């Protein structure tokens, strides 16, 4: 039954008793719903980024937005996250815990890489409060990183319980975070 048919049901009439249908697991629905939440959050941040970027500084009408340089580490981290997502996809398809552990480990490498990136920027003088571009960079990477850490906790629990359904959900979550990261990386690199 399509959603439209379900919403136009004439429930006051003595219709036939509905047949039970297979429902996706609660975990899947909950995870997808959470993607909605996170999508709104990151979309709003991107909107705020673009809005703030287009603004003029102070009364002197000079752009106060100074873009950050793009170090090679940014590319390397992106590749690591892609590899991590691929490993998770392998785990999802082959039901092997080893691939999942690989995916989680690569996720940690990505986080370490992001930390290095922060250190790198700090050393080069790109402090949080020095410029709105820096502030957005730290804010976005921090929120993305926190989401990945949450994913690592969930992955640890799924692995400990050898729960294949939850491992598949972790893979899904990783892909989602990869897409978010790609959008953010494009944003950071192109502005």
């Amino acid at each position: 039954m399509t959603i439209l048919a379900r919403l136009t049901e004439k429930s006051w009439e003595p219709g036939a008793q509905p047949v039970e249908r297979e429902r996706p697991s609660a975990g899947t629905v909950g995870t997808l719903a959470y993607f909605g939440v996170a999508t709104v959050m990151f979309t709003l941040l991107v909107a705020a980024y673009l809005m703030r970027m287009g603004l003029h500084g102070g009364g002197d009408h000079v752009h106060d937005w100074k873009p950050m340089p793009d170090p090679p580490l940014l590319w390397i981290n992106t590749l690591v996250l892609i590899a991590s997502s691929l490993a998770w996809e392998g785990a999802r398809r082959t039901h092997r815990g080893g691939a999942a552990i690989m995916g989680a480990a690569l996720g940690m490498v990505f986080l370490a890489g992001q930390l290095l990136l922060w250190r790198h920027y700090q050393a080069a003088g790109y402090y949080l409060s020095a410029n709105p571009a820096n502030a957005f960079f730290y804010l976005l990477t921090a929120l993305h990183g926190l989401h990945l850490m949450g994913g690592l906790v969930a992955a640890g629990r799924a692995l400990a319980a050898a729960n294949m359904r939850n491992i598949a959900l972790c893979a899904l979550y990783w892909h989602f975070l990869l897409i978010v990261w790609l959008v953010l990386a494009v944003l950071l690199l192109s502005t």
Partner: protein
Amino acid sequence: MATTLADDLRPLHHPHSWVTKYVWSQDHKVIAIQYSCTAIGIGLVALVLSALMRLQLGFPGAFPAIQPDNYLQFVSMHGMIMVVYLLTALLLGGFGNYLIPLMIGARDMVFPFVNMLSYWFYLLSVIVLVAGFFVPGGPTGAGWTLYPPQAISEGTPGHQWGIVTMLVSLAIFVAAFTMGGLNYVTTVLQARTRGMTLMRMPLSVWGIFTASVMGLLAFPALFVAAIMMLFDHLAGTSFFMPTMQSMGAITPTQGGSPLLFQHLFWFFGHPEVYIVALPAFGIVSDLISVHARRNIFGYRMMVWAIVIIGALSFLVWAHHMYVSGMNPYFGFFFATSTLIIAIPTAIKVYNWLLTLWRGDIHLRVPMLFAIAFIFTFIHGGLSGLFLGNVSVDVPLSDTFFVVAHFHMVMGVSPILVIFGAIYHWYPKIFGRMWNDSLGKMHFWITFIGVYAIFLPMHYLGILGVPRRYYALGQADFIPPSVHLANEWISIAALIVFCAQGLFFYNMIWSLFRGPKADPNPWGAASLEWQTPDTPPAHGNWGPHLPTVYRWAYDYSVPGAPRDFIPQTEPREPEPRA
């Protein structure tokens, strides 16, 4: 993960000790009560703050303990607590938790552990919020809208620490709400019992479900805004903070956009109005239908109206920003979208009235509150039509007309529904009946009282009395009648304040002394009244989940033996062709 769909009871988490049963409980009914008690507790704080404000406004200068700074702090904390920590938490965390599984025939929420976490995060957010009263400088006085730059600038009360506790508390609240909201949405989608199609769900569930979806999509804006403002305040970034001169010196921040905050805040703030209103709409529909012994008029239309209102309310946020200097074309767009929402809303009002029309109306306490809601909601909605128009709004902005409007529409109206709902479901929740006369007394004082408080405020607003003012002082546009009106408003507010004692006395008295309740005292058709135990036991349904054969509104069906047919009653094979 526990599955709560099957008739198999084993996967359900079974509490063994008193602590796991009542403290770290994963039972949706216990969590609902925890949520409700916490929300009502913090709501009482907000109520006391409103009484203090009214004392100051009615009798300026008579209470030297209330200084201008305190007044602003009271306004801000009162507003934020009422909207977020009381109404949102009580309607979704409280009623959502209690009603969803029982009304759709589930044993519990689908993620009981996350549900428990949600409550404890909420409690933490309340504790951090209350901590604001004790930090140096006191809580924030920036208004519940917390607009930067003033919220974190010299001269605003609580700009040092109070604002930090407020923002941190909000961020925790959003986390708590997200955990709860994911549960409510997934449970409605996943755990409905056999035969419970989407369109057989009671409107209460539809309202709570839609509001939860909206909350999931709107609260991230508040979260983002809170985090960014924390950065501005604690780390010296300038997301929102423009270049400013303070005491002749240029502040270190530069170029930030206060308007950006306003957009984020109201992207959350307007849907928030409907996050509070939609559950109230749903609940009031059920109260009216049960106590008028009639099926709700236009059920399908009611469901669609709920969904359409929910969707549209994401497109109107900037009607709170008409005076922010935005492009006039935006104003035109947002005024139009705002007025369009009036259409599905009016449909709902007509349908409530048509349900009552020729109904067999039983004026019991829950019904009195439901009908009172229709009054206050129509009044608040009508003044909203004025404020939705840019040219009318501009002179009325930041006056008491606005205060009167939003108290009618989103303060008093949902509160009346909450009272009605508590009177209605208490017999199921605790298995005891209330004292009817006390309930009626509480109703009449509250209903007439809120009109005495908020109707005159429209008049003050039209005269131009500004909101968030500690005292009016001497001004030519303020005639003496304003002071008189303020005095009487305050007296009415104090009477309403005291009358709530009747409610709490009644609640506690009935808990111990109330007559034992029948499992279905109102003769209601929906599932929650058909549980094998009253109050429902852990797992709700005994060994077998119920099967649903009909919608929740079979009242006064011609030829039926009783004037209602429970949802669990199988359909007879058609007697005649």
